[in-house]
Every structure is written in C-alpha cells, then in structure tokens.
C-alpha cells in the first residue's frame, strides 16, 4: 500500500485467488481492490448475497468465511484467498431441503422483499451454531446488526427462535455444518 502512486493504477495487478464456496473450488483472477461481495456476485455469479450499503452497516452481504459471519463488502477478495466460504446458496441440506433457519423464515413470514434475507439467514446460522437455545433477548442480539426495512423484525425474531427449535428437534445435525468445506465438491 505504501507503494501506491501514479504508476500503480488501482486496477493494475491481478491476483490469482482460490475460494472454496459452498464446497466448490473456484480459481479467479481479480484486481486487488475487488470486494469479496463483488467477486462472489459478479465473478462467481452467486447473486444470492446482496449488497445494501457497501459500508458494512446493513448486513445484507454477510457470508461465512471459515465459519465466521463476515460482511463481504468490507473484505477484499484477495484477502479471502484459500478460505472456505458459505453463501445463502449453500445453506440448504445436501438433498435440497431448506435448512432450519430458511424453513423458520418461511414458517414465520420472516421475509417480505427478501433483499436483506440472505444476510439474516447467514448471520443466524452462524449464531445458532454457538448458541443453540437462545432466549428471545439473545435472538434479538443475534440479529441486532442487520437492517431490514420491510418486516419490523417481529417475525425475524420469531424465526430465530423457531429455527433453534427446528435445529434442536433434528438433533442438531441439520444446519449445524453449512457447506463450507469440500464435502459437496463432487456433487456439484
């Protein structure tokens, strides 16, 4: 970064990056400034991840990077090199059924326009892995950093609790390990 000057136009310098997204390995060549969100959406065409503010406040672009919920608009694609990433497209069970969090959103009318929804789904999926039986107060904390303009959050809070219930009744096997690893590479 200290070398930044007239000779290094921001679009100069392409980098080879390997991303394992939803279990599928992708090798992409990107400029250093390419946001992870843009790389996922426009280079890999995984458009389920949405961009609502590009300054890390709304949470719509949240993805799992090595199991941690990350705002993909605040991360450069080059810095995700080698990472295992889960996007909303990778949340369903291997047989295509909705994950507990996705199912809970359908059950509770937790979405309207659906634009912020992928970010909520990822955020909640990550949180429930560490907090499988949240109280209502904790459910609010889990979604406390994501913006939604449609639902007034009422049914999203219910969906968090419902998702936890579905997850527990499935013995914790469902939705506990989103397809971050390489398990599904062959199936794709």
């Amino acid at each position: 970064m200290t070398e930044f000057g007239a000779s290094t136009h921001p679009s100069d310098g392409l980098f080879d990056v390997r991303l394992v997204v939803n279990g599928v390995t992708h090798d992409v060549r990107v400029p250093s400034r390419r946001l992870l969100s843009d790389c996922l959406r426009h280079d890999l065409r995984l458009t389920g991840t949405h961009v609502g503010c590009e300054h890390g406040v709304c949470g719509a672009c949240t993805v799992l990077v090595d199991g941690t919920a990350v705002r993909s608009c605040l991360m450069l694609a080059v810095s995700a090199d080698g990472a295992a990433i889960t996007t909303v497209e990778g949340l369903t069970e291997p047989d295509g059924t909705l994950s507990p969090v996705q199912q809970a959103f359908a059950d509770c009318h937790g979405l309207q326009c659906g634009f912020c929804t992928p970010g909520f789904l990822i955020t909640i999926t990550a949180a429930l892995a560490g907090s499988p039986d949240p109280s209502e107060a904790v459910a609010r904390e889990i979604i406390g950093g994501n913006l939604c303009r449609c639902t007034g959050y009422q049914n999203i809070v219910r969906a968090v609790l419902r998702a936890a219930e579905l997850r527990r009744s499935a013995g914790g096997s469902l939705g506990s390990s989103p397809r971050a690893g390489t398990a599904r590479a062959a199936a794709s």
Partner: protein
Amino acid sequence: MTAMFGEPIPRVEDDRLLRGGGAYLDDLGHDALAVAYVRSPHAHARVLGIDVSGALDVDGVAAIYTYQDLQGRLAEPLPLLIPHPALTHGRTGYPLAAGEVNYVGEPVAMVIAADRYLAEDAAELIMVDYEPLPAVVGVDEARAAGHLVHDDVPGNVAGHLVQEHGDAAAAIAAAPRTLDLDLYVERSASTPLEGRGVLARWDPESRRLRIWTSTQTSTGVRAAVAAKLGLALADVDVITPDVGGGFGVKIVHPWPEEVLVPWAARALGRPVKYTEDRLEHFVASAHERGQRHQVRVGFDDDGRLLGLDVRFWHDNGAYIPYGLIVPIITSTQLLGPYKPGAYRVEFSSLYTNTVIVAPYRGAGRPQGVFVMERTMDAIAAALGLDRTVVRERNFIRPEEMPYDHGLIFQDGRPLIYDSGDYPAVLAKLKALIGWDGFAAERAAALEQGRRLGIGLACYVEGTGVGPYEGAHVVVETSGKVKVATGLTSQGQGHQTVLAQITADELGVPIGDIEVVTGDTRAFGYAVGTFASRTAVMSGSAVALAARAVRAKAIRVAAAALEASPEDMEITDGIVRIKGDPESGIAIGTVAVLSNPLRYAFDEAAQAATQFAGGDIDAPPVAEGDEPGIEGRQFFSPIRSTFASGMHAAIVETDQETAEIKVLRYCVVHDCGTLINPRIVEGQIHGGVAQGVGGALYERMAYDETGQLQNASFMDFLMPYVSEVPERIEIDHLQTPSPLNPLGVKGAGEAGVIPGAALFAAAIEDAEQLPITSMPISPSDLFELRRNAAASAALWPSGPAGRGARGERPLADGAAPDTAGHGR
C-alpha cells in the same frame, strides 16, 4: 377444497428467495457495461464547463455523456407526471444537468465502462467547473424567498391550493374556544434495502428495447422511455425483476438514469446497467415528509370541532415531477375519522435546493394525522377531557356512511368515505391497551421513579385509487393457471394473495397457479403500485377475470357433458356436475376442448382435432367466441375506498438521559375483508417500524449549504431490531368496502401513518410538555425539558408562555401540573 381467501397461508414467493434464487436488478446482466455518474457536489450552481478529456483514456471506458450529447426529446426536461391546475410553476430536471444544478447529487455526466470500478475511476477524472449560487434549504428559507431556486419561479412557490367546505373563518370566529398550533415534521425517506437500478438491452436485429428496472410502475417507465426515445410502445418491453423494497420512492419515473441507460444501450449496441449505491440513494433519489403547518381550530365546551383552518408549506425539493400529490393527500386526509365542522385548507408547495420528493409510504398522511391528532390532544388538554372522549365526540358515525367531506381527493374525485366504524375501532383499541387502567399503571410506575405516558392516534386512509388495473387469467392445457397483472411487486406478497383470490374464484388448487406482475410482455395496461392499491385494484381485476374464466370453463365442459351450465361446479381443478363426482373433466382438458385443433400436439390434444367429433353443422368456434379458457378483465372503481385504524402506545422516558422507550404498541386496523391476515400483519409490522423510525430516529440532516450530513446507514438512524417495539399487538375490524367485488381496502401503508402523532402524544403525556415537532430524539427532549424549566423559572405560576389558549391541564390519568399546547 378449503377456501384460500382469508387464510394466513405461507407465501408462495418465499422458497425461491430463501435459497438465494431471487433475481434483483443487479443480479441480472452480467454481460452489461456499467455506469457511474458524476453528480453535483453543490446544492445550487451554474455549470460553466465540463472537461472529460482526462477520463477518456481510462482503461475500459466505452462512453462518456454530458448534456451536450443529448438529442431531441432526451434533451428536454423530464416529464411532469401529475399535472394539476394549481401547479402553476411545475419544473422538472433534465436527464443530465443543462447548465444549472439544483441539488447535491444531480447527475452531470454519465460514464459507461467495462465495470463499475473503472467507470468510477473515469468519473473521478472528469473536471466540472461550477459557479456556486446561494442554496435554499428547508421550508422556512423557501418561504422567506431570500433566494430563488429557479429564477423564473417567484417566491419559490411551485403550486398553491385552497379547498374549503363551509365558512371556516366564520365558524372559528363564532366558536366559544379556539387554539392555534404550529406543527413541524422533518424529512425522512423510503430507504429500501435495494436502491434503484436499471438494465437495458437493445436488439439491433428486431430493433426492440428490453428494460429491466427496479420500479413500482413498469408500464409508466415503458410509456416514458418510448416517448423519450421515439419508439413505439410495442417495441419496448419493461420487466420488473424482484424488487428489494420500494415504499414509494420507486414510483417516480422515469428517473434520469431510466432514460439514459436505455438510450446508451441503443447508442452503443451493448447492454448497459446502472446500479445505484447507498450514497446515491440518500442524495439523489427522493425524500418526503418535510412540512410546516399552522392550525387554527374553533370548538365548543364539549370539544366538538366547529371550524378548522390549516395552512401548510410543503418542501418539494429541487423539482416536482410527482406534482402536488403529497400535499393534496395531507390536506384531505388530515381530517381522519372526524367531522371538522367548517374546514379550510391552504398549502404552498415550495422549491428548495434539496433532492426531490416522492411519496413515501403514507404519502403526506403521517403529517396530516400529526396535525389533526395534535389538535385533538390540544383540545382535550384545553378542556380537561380524556383524549379518547374528545375523539369519540367528533367521530363520523357508522350510520353516517357514506360520508362526503365536500372536498376533492388526490384522485380528482370527491372525498367520500365508503364505510367504516370508528367508534368500534376505538373501543377495541382502548380494550387492547387498557386505556382506562393506565392511570393506575402510571401512578405505580411513578412510585418507582419511572415516568410513563400513553398516547393514541387515529387515521383514515384513502386506498386503492384508480384509474384502473387489469388482469389476465389463462388455463393451460396442463391445468396450470397463469395469472398476470400489470402493477409491480416489491415484497408485499402479491403472488400469494392474487393466487388465493384466483384459487377460490376459479376452483383450482393454489399450487397450480402462477402469478406474474410488472412485466409489460404479460400485461401491458397498468398504473402501478402505490396508495395501498394492489389488493383493491388488481385483486378485484383478478377476481373478475377468474370469474369470467370459470364461466367459460363451465360452458365448454357443460357442452361436452351435455349438461346445463347451472348444474356445474369447479372443485380442485375438476369441472363437474354438482353432486356427481364421477362426471368431472380436468380443467386442463377443458382448455384442450375449448381450442378446436387441426394438429394434435399430444395425446390429450387429439380430443380437440377435427375428426374427433363435434357438431358438424356449427362453426368450430362459435360466433363471438374465442378459443381457449382465458379471460381479461379490468377493474375501475368510481373512487377510492377508505381504510382506517388507530394505534396506541405506552412509552417510558428516562428521567436523566431523556431516552424514549416503547413499552407497548397496539394497533387496531380495519382494511375491510382480509385476504391473508399473516401478510396484512406483516405489512403492519413493517409500517410500524418505519413509523417508529420517522418519529424517533430518522431525519435528513441537510446543512445550510444543502449538504446532506448523514447520507449513510452509519448516520441515518434506520431502526435495527433494538429500536422497534418488542411486541406489536394487533386486532382487526373488518368493515367491507362496498366499492369492489372483494370488499377489501388497502393495507400497505397503514402501519406507518400514525407514528409521528402517536409518539408525540405519548411523550407529551409522559413529560407534560407540548410536543410540536417531529422526529424527537433524546437530545431534543432534553432541550425541551431545559427550556421548560427555564420558562417555569420565568413564569413560576404556570406555562403561560407556551400555551395558546389551552387553559387547563391534561386530563387522562392523574395529570400533574402543567398544560398548554401549541405555540
């Protein structure tokens, strides 16, 4: 088969959206060139010159356009969408600034490049020479007219309208009591999570244009772009993809970007896409709500209104493409559920050097309700009456319906309420929140050192405005039913509710129904999605079309079965003789039979071919008949239908920090017959959250030079979950509308409408301080307390300096020491 209408079924939209399968504007057109705009950094300036030479060599740049490049109708101002005789000085902007800029964010140059990064690189290198001019910011500066936004618009007045029913001045002069209030509401904005965006493809071989745009009116965009580019309507398709929220801002059309992108796509012969970013959305789309109001009201000793005179000033921003709609709505809808006595309203719509106004969910009603409900509370305070009693005394009674206010509404039609039962709504609300028991609650809290307040606000909302919507329903030979209506969806669940209506009207399983909205290829005649009109307008059109289709399916099946149509029914997609389940023909087969064929395309189709039988002495398609089981119908009501509702809230205000906490939030809502209660409640939830935002958090912080200081989600405080009430308690009343075949009224906007009025009332009740300006933040409240303390020190005997002629203290509950409303 279970009836679908009225059932809280899950949405048919959800599965796809939950899997990441939504297709929003920026998810499309991966092959398209990207657009970035050079936008004005000044609120008001002359553009002396634009030097693009430094940008031309940037890698990947395909084209750069300025106003000089625009030709023909594209070089003219954008359309004034809703003309009105009172809009005497309507001005609209150009697609790219033509010598002058009038708000920060106005587009000056358009850069098209291989991707957005490169387009922004180039945009940064374009040098624009501006001569700054004085900026007019806010209602008060616009009124003062020390400077003009447009040189040829005296006083900054775009339009001025007066309506009067009865002689308000005389009624107020003769009234035993009067009050004056000065009431202000600040700007806020729709702020959908997805901004605007448009993608265009020009097909040079068929010479046709295809546009995808994140809009609330695809037919409106189609007509406007066709006119601007000199194309036949038939050569332009406009498709609304999934839209990430609208709330009003996306009804404005064509945006500068919406005409420039298709134009550039045609000029370059390449697909072109523009995706608005968040900063652009804040500064360069649209805001709403900014109005200052002066109220003079005359009433009797029982609190009955005798005369009401309201003057207000509306901040319409730099241009006025959407006309006077917002202030007209305020001026008519502020009457709410009340009989005002004689009523006079006068407003001026004023230009300022800020971004334009588009209707934002509620569209002028939140301000109107704020005005009327503050007035009601002031009257109650002046008379020492319970606030619900004053309202009750002024309600239009159910037996007075339909009620004619003697005014003209936003659709150019008389303001006549079709139905409603306001006393019943109030009774439900009082029961729901425990209005009568609150005094004890307040006293108990006070003993613990906690300060509580209760408030309520009532509204009536004209919904389902015309002129019309239409629908097409067709039964495929597979038995699947395709429904199309022209208005657009932004997440309201239209596919679900329109499928529910179709399922019941036609008698087919809901899973066999597919609904398309906002695609001019599927249905070319439509108005758009605004004013809570989809259920009323398209819902009714779908019902009428489905009824026509049902009648035809029965007629064709009856002929095939040699039965009388009156004896037939359709259940679960089977057309059959009533009481004879064995007699049925699948509706898809009926569709085959309805279309006499020469060529069989599959086994089922053989039954409709020429050698398969039938009356050889009659024409295969009877005179006046058509092949196919399909129907197209339009619904065009004589005027709007009026939904209503009342909200109540209990708040706690922190004695030290002035933090405002919502303890209870109750809604009683009457949108006529409910199609899907789950979806209606979802609409209310979202509206209430926006109401909370507008009342307590959101403001557009323009500085004196017209720079928006809080144009990000860091600084514009859109509610997170932590800001909305933990519970929104909802009860419904269902007063069917007599104006449409379903008895429905709109529900989309209701939740947001009473927000400002409600919180002002509850905070005023808690604090015993007059609240006359919204939104109110903890620091605003802190200042009000400090000013009140200073004023109490000046006038130890009471709040004489504050009140108008409000003589007695607030009444509901054990109101303590101060009073006085209005300033």
